[in-house]
């Protein structure tokens, strides 16, 4: 079984939001639902006009970090949140009682309430859609025009993600919390 993760070459991001659109389309997220599943964070340009520091303006895509040590999974009273065989953190909407404990426990604000199922949902690396069909890419990765996203098996030393993580420096978010995110930001 794989242990899926994603590396983000975030400096290539041009904030075109193609990934958000592709994700909504693939996973049936309600239109207009802001920051559901994935989003692009914007760091505004620093400085006063005309002395603007163009380099300070960066875009950082974010989403569920698929923590290896996920607080959302630990606090879920009914095991609605679970690790699947690929290490993907998933929510079983039949078991979710909407206690919102996981929303409070997730340090990355990655979870939201899906208005259709009235349960908590979040990114699941297209496990219900693309991966279930036997494909090996996520919608956001496949659509990104500047190849920001590299999705793959962290346990396979020959996968692109493993190679890139070996070669390039990277960091994870809120590492000090011990959640062991599987989203890596490439420097």
């Amino acid at each position: 079984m794989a242990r899926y993760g994603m590396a983000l070459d975030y400096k290539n991001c041009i904030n075109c939001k193609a990934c958000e659109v592709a994700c909504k389309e693939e996973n049936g997220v309600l239109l207009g639902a802001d920051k559901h599943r994935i989003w692009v964070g914007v760091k505004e340009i620093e400085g006063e006009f005309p002395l603007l520091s163009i380099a300070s303006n960066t875009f950082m895509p974010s989403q569920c970090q698929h923590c290896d040590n996920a607080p959302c999974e630990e606090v879920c009273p009914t095991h609605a949140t679970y690790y699947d065989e690929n290490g993907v953190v998933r929510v079983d909407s039949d078991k979710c009682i909407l206690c919102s404990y996981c929303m409070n426990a997730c340090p990355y604000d990655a979870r939201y309430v899906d208005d259709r199922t009235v349960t908590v949902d979040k990114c699941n690396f297209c496990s219900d859609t693309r991966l279930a069909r036997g494909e090996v890419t996520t919608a956001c990765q496949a659509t990104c025009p500047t190849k920001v996203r590299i999705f793959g098996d962290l346990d396979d030393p020959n996968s692109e993600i493993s190679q890139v993580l070996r070669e390039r420096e990277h960091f994870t978010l809120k590492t000090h919390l011990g959640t062991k995110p599987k989203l890596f930001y490439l420097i």
Partner: protein
Amino acid sequence: MDLQKIIPYRKLSLKELLVPENKFMALVAIVLTALFLIGVMIYLVHGHHAYGVTREHPWGLLIAMYIFFVVSSTGLCIVGSFGDVFGFKDYMAVSKRAIFGSIITILSGFAVIAFEIGHPVRMMIYNVISPGLTSAIWWMGTLYGIYLTFMVIEFVFLMRNDMKRAKIFGLIGLLVGLAAHSNLGGVFGFLNARVVANGVFYPTYFILTAFITGIYLIFLMYGYKYRGQPFPEDVAKALTNFAKIQGLLLAILMFFETWKMLTGVYGGMPERADTIMHILHTKSFWLGEVLCGMVIPFLVILKSKGTAIKSMVWASFIGMIGIFYMRYDLVHDAQLFPMQTLKIREYQLPPSFVDYFPSLTEMMIGFGGIGLCLILYFLGTKLFDLDSMPEHH
């Protein structure tokens, strides 16, 4: 089956029930209960959209009110145990009323939380068939269920004056209740993401404030019962003792709170210190928690050395307002600091504390729960003899 044989109760005429002796309290209870029902209907139509909670602030007034009720229940259970579990004669007079109170407060708490949890029925099924053993909510819920069962059995034996069995079930109920209640503290203590809540503080603090709440409530119950009359000697004695214990407990609570705030701001740790400073600038902390919940009752006790039990009734009323603020702030403060990773500057919004204010529907259901509690209490005082002392064998 004859219910009388299981639990002795009074046979009531409808007239006794429909013509309560205190019209004002009856009106308060009915209005609040009506609001509860209206709130529930709005919730059933609109779901969580009728509430002020958001993705950033998923827990609101209803969680606070649930905590308010179950803290009350645990507190009354502790207070009641003095007489029937530990066998202190001075406290025997208040046991029945306290244990009855602990049952109705937790029932009211369950009634409120049922409309906050998105799928309460599903919860009962999956709590059993796929338990999340690492979840503090799972333990809290399960233990409170067991606790309620034991408290009901204890109450039945108390009413039958079977003190031996009441003692056994009371002791188990008390222990399970304490475990449940510290787990409720753990629900917050386990939140690594929320640095003001994370840690060992809440589980112990919950037990302490439960004890304090229980004493406030016992004063309210007896203050109401003997309004305008002198207290009977045995009740007065128990209450005076409780007032003295309350003085000590409030002193410990103030000590706890001081150290929580000091360790919170010390070193200026990001997130934690900012949040604590924010709390220290709110009126609900100073006027609600500190003044009403601790200082005023403490001064009343200090001034008379615990003997002014009539004034303590009023002080307890103020104290309960303070306890409400303690619960509300606890829930709100944990969620104050935004978690929004990498979304911080989006749309040029400066990072700010998360806002939340309860919607009207939340208030109707949350405060309406007090109406349920009052009605159950009224029925209890009519149906059961909560005052007779057990005969000693």
